[in-house]
């Protein structure tokens, strides 16, 4: 652990990550290899630059926000555990998880946790509220220079109006969940379970 830069993942580590995240053994080794190929500095952790080197991510309008989601508050490096924890949000929701440990708490890829991830894309200052400014920021990132400020402003206002139920002109997490699609939001990459 720590700064050991070895290229092999130990069995105990794999087991622990499996319990925490629910990924299968082969998926974990596969993702470890991926982590390693992204880690150009070979110091066992990824920095923001390592992510930005992926061209498809660099051209994604929300690229920076997604990268941000991997890094805990105030830190510049993410190790493999942290990497896996974040990716675990995107495993598809299963109806009955076998071997589910009742004391382990809610799995990382539950619907609530997926929604919370999406919520945090908007909520940059982590105050559990999406303000008008934060909404505008994300909108601006997605449309670039193609839409005027006034238009964007009115879109933001309309969205807040629809979602806001307690009248504080901000969207809290519970308000956010109510406006979201009911069906299980597999927001993203359905990481297929290796048979």
């Amino acid at each position, binding site marked *: 652990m720590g700064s050991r830069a070895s290229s092999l993942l130990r069995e105990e580590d794999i087991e622990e990550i499996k319990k925490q995240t629910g990924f299968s053994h082969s998926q974990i080794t596969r993702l470890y290899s991926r982590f390693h190929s992204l880690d150009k500095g070979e110091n066992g952790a990824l920095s923001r630059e390592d992510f930005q080197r992926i061209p*498809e991510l660099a051209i994604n309008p929300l690229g920076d926000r997604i990268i941000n989601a991997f890094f805990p508050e105030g830190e510049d490096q993410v190790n493999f555990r942290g990497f896996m924890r974040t990716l675990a949000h995107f495993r598809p929701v299963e109806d009955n998880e076998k071997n589910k440990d009742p004391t382990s708490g809610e799995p990382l890829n539950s619907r609530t946790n997926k929604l919370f991830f999406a919520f945090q894309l908007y909520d940059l200052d982590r105050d559990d509220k999406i303000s008008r400014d934060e909404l505008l920021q994300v909108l601006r990132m997605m449309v670039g220079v193609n839409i*005027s400020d006034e238009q964007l402003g009115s879109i933001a206002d309309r969205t807040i109006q629809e979602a806001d139920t307690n009248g504080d002109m901000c969207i809290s997490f519970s308000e956010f969940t109510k406006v979201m699609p009911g069906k299980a939001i597999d927001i*993203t990459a359905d990481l297929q379970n290796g048979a």
Partner: protein
Amino acid sequence: MGPFMSPFNNLLCMLLGISFTVWFTLLLVFIIVPAIFGLSFGIRRLYMKTLLKVFEWATVRMERGAKEKKHLLYKPYSLNSIIAKEPTSLEEELKEIRRNCSSRELDGSASTTTSPSPSSSEFEMSDTFYFCRRGIESIVDDEVTKCFTAEELESWNLLTRSNNNFNHISTRLTVLWGLGVVIRYGFLLPLRMKNFLSEKVHLMCYRICVRALTAIITYHHSENKPKNGGICVANHTSPIDVIILASDGCYAMVGQIHGGLMGLIQRSMVKACPHIWFERSEVKDRHLVAKRLSNHVKDKSKLPILIFPEGTCINNTSVMMFKKGSFEIGSTVYPVAIKYDPRFGEAFWNSSKFGMVNYLLRMMSSWAIVCSVWYLPPMSRQEGEDAMQFANRVKAAIARQGGLVDLLWDGGLKRGKVKDTFKEEQQKLYSKILVGTQEVRSRS
């Protein structure tokens, strides 16, 4: 103990001496002599077949070992691909996400405001999901980074560097691996070191190199071999490509001047044949380069030029964007596809990770270099086709023949960053969906 040791020592020395001499003679007879006469004993093909059988056995053992531990053997991308969904376009994806939203509202959830029927041109907070998904998918796996890392194999070829599964599976396997190490470093490597440094005239020199690397090359369609006054383009995986092509015909090379060992080799090659070497800074001045190339090409007595239009080494699973410079000159282009068999040794040179000497060492201690070379029929630029389209046409032909993936990404991404114009395109597309095409103003 004294008297017992000395005869034993003598015996040992004698044995060593004899075995060394025998080994050396065999070396001479089987390698150097045939190389001079351009013969082949067919031993190398037998060697290849034996190696393959050994690898298969090794893989079976490993799979059995993994099954005992009740988990899957780690296999490369193709089988357990992590991303299941098919890539869809921005519009389709957004429509689907919004459809989910609208059907929920029809379920009669009590909302205080009368929400307007979600037409496709309004912003929904769930729109971020599309970009989020694409982003995470690209973190898990993307086309470009894959091109610049060595290809992963399904079976193990007893080179530790090509497999992450190297755990102690069985003693027999470890012994085999140990034996392999001894053979490769003690036998094949010194053999090749000696051969590689020898100095001979053009074709013979290359032929020796070819044998030195135990390269088994199959040339297809030799009737399409490049002729004088033409340009030969090929996909690029390693500096060995040059050796492989040059042992079958004479070319004038064009390329970046390197320092170190590579530069030494380049300079020595110039003495045998006229080549065109550039500084990368000079390459930026494209007119100068183009002029020199076209002058060379116009002279029909000069050898065909060999160019690798990708500009850098790719790992032989795909073909990246061809730089259009060589296609602007207007002479006949002879495409060549080179495909290495990765089971015997990884030929890809990751120049941002390994230097030349390190690379050569790895090459010489692999089992063998097995590759196929296809000479494709000559192509020339058609009416109304510009250089870029012509380049793409040639690239598609090479990719098709070699069974490689045809990519639009620039090989320069190995070292540099991607341009912002791609991001702007995505943003523009999304804006159109939001507000309709008329209102999107294009800013210059």
